[in-house]
């Protein structure tokens, strides 16, 4: 394994349509997620530096551990979030889509 350079930022995003509100993610990534009074995750949409390794690993745990696969870690070099493939209907990522 070489040296992994951790530059850029990431955000953790939830698909509110898939999310069931059992709040698993708040246990897996307590530093990023807290729950509202109905049990649904509130996640800061401020980009977090990749250099914050603990936070990044938690985000990955949450992403993998979410029973509904409702969570997604989005890496970005530019500050704006990148468009994802609609999760309701997984389609191959086309070239057009990446240009958005």
């Amino acid at each position, binding site marked *: 394994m070489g040296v992994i350079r951790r530059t850029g930022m990431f955000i953790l995003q939830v*698909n509110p349509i898939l999310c069931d509100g059992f709040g698993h993610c708040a246990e897996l990534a307590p530093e990023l997620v807290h729950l*509202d009074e109905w049990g*649904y995750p509130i996640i800061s949409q401020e980009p977090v530096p990749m250099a914050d390794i603990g936070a990044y690993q938690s985000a990955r745990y949450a992403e993998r551990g979410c029973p509904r696969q409702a969570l997604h870690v989005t890496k970005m070099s530019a500050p704006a*979030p990148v*468009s994802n493939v609609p999760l309701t209907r997984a*389609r191959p990522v086309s070239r057009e889509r990446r240009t958005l």
Partner: protein
Amino acid sequence: MIQAHTLPRLFAGATNKPLSLTEHERMFEPSGDVSNLLEELDASGLVGRGGAGFPTTRKVDLLRHQRGHKYVVVNGMEGEPAAHKDNRLLSTNPHLVLDGAEMLAQMIGASRIAICVARDNPTVVNHVERAIHERARRNLRGPGIDLHTPPWRYVAGEESALVHWLDDNESLPQYRPGRPHILRIGRGPTLVDNAETCANVGLIGRYGAQWFRSLGTSEHPGTAVVSVTGAVARPNVLEVNLGTPLTNILATAGADTSPQAVLLGGYGGAWLRGDQINTPYCNESLSEFKLSVGAGIIAVLPRQACGVAEAHRVVRWMAHESARQCGPCAFGLPALADDLLTVVRGGRDGVAAIARLQDRCGVIEGRGACRHPDGVVRFVRSSIEVFAHDIDDHLRGGPCAGARSNQRFLTVPALEHEEELIWE
């Protein structure tokens, strides 16, 4: 040809039945000045009339650079209960809307147009159907036009819900992380535009940008079709010059001359205080009050009305209209309605409810798949701010006379289990 400075534009030649294709063509004779549609649309500064007020040219540009079998969707769903503008447009001159849709299709290279009208409006559906047949008989070249009639619901008119309906027969909004996002029917990139927006494109394509900009303001050019309701002698749909003082619009409709407040935009909109109604009606002036023209609703609330009780009814209904896909919307909106009811009832519980309302608004905002909850939050925040005096009275002395009178001014469809009288 329609003269540049005259009103009505979109409603030119209106009678009580829709203009036939021949009448429409005679009325809206092209000037022949338009050589490049895209440039004219860009120069026109047209912004969407469906609510968000986004520049139409930017949407067209985004779609133009996509590849595939593209669609244009005309949004004539008229989700706002107080609005009648798209229905009126489609019942007055459906061909102007369809012309605009065809021009949009030409600009982005779309091969099909889907026009969507709620099936709950059989007359409008008929008018549109007849217009499509008329065009088919004429054998006009151009993309095929299909009529679609989803059932009416507030969120059915939201663009991703509309596309979902066309794709899969379900009026449910879709999750779209990151913007801009290209909506798709099947794999086909789809442009969704409001019926009034399309009608304006129809005018721009005929007479050009300069003509279009001769009415309205520099930032918000053209006309707007507004639905004036509430405490109004003649509730009506009017076409107004953008930038006209709101007072004049209210006077035309015979509204209460010193209202308590005026709701602008729709049920996802916000209130303008009664002492501010001389503000010009256009986005650049309204944005000072964090308001916008939105979907063109102007609902007048008279002094004797209870703003909090009205707000409660609206929010209760909006909560009912949630598609209930997302937790913060499905649970949050009814919680907001409950809080508002507690405020209406007043007393010490009301004080706690106001604090809770503020918190919950912050928690809910931005957490739905669509902007439905954000609209409700905007409406609630504005209601708390504008009716602060009323609220104080309620908290101190219980429901005011307006709340107890059971006289209501905003159009809210009945719910199945409507709240019984809130007090004895």
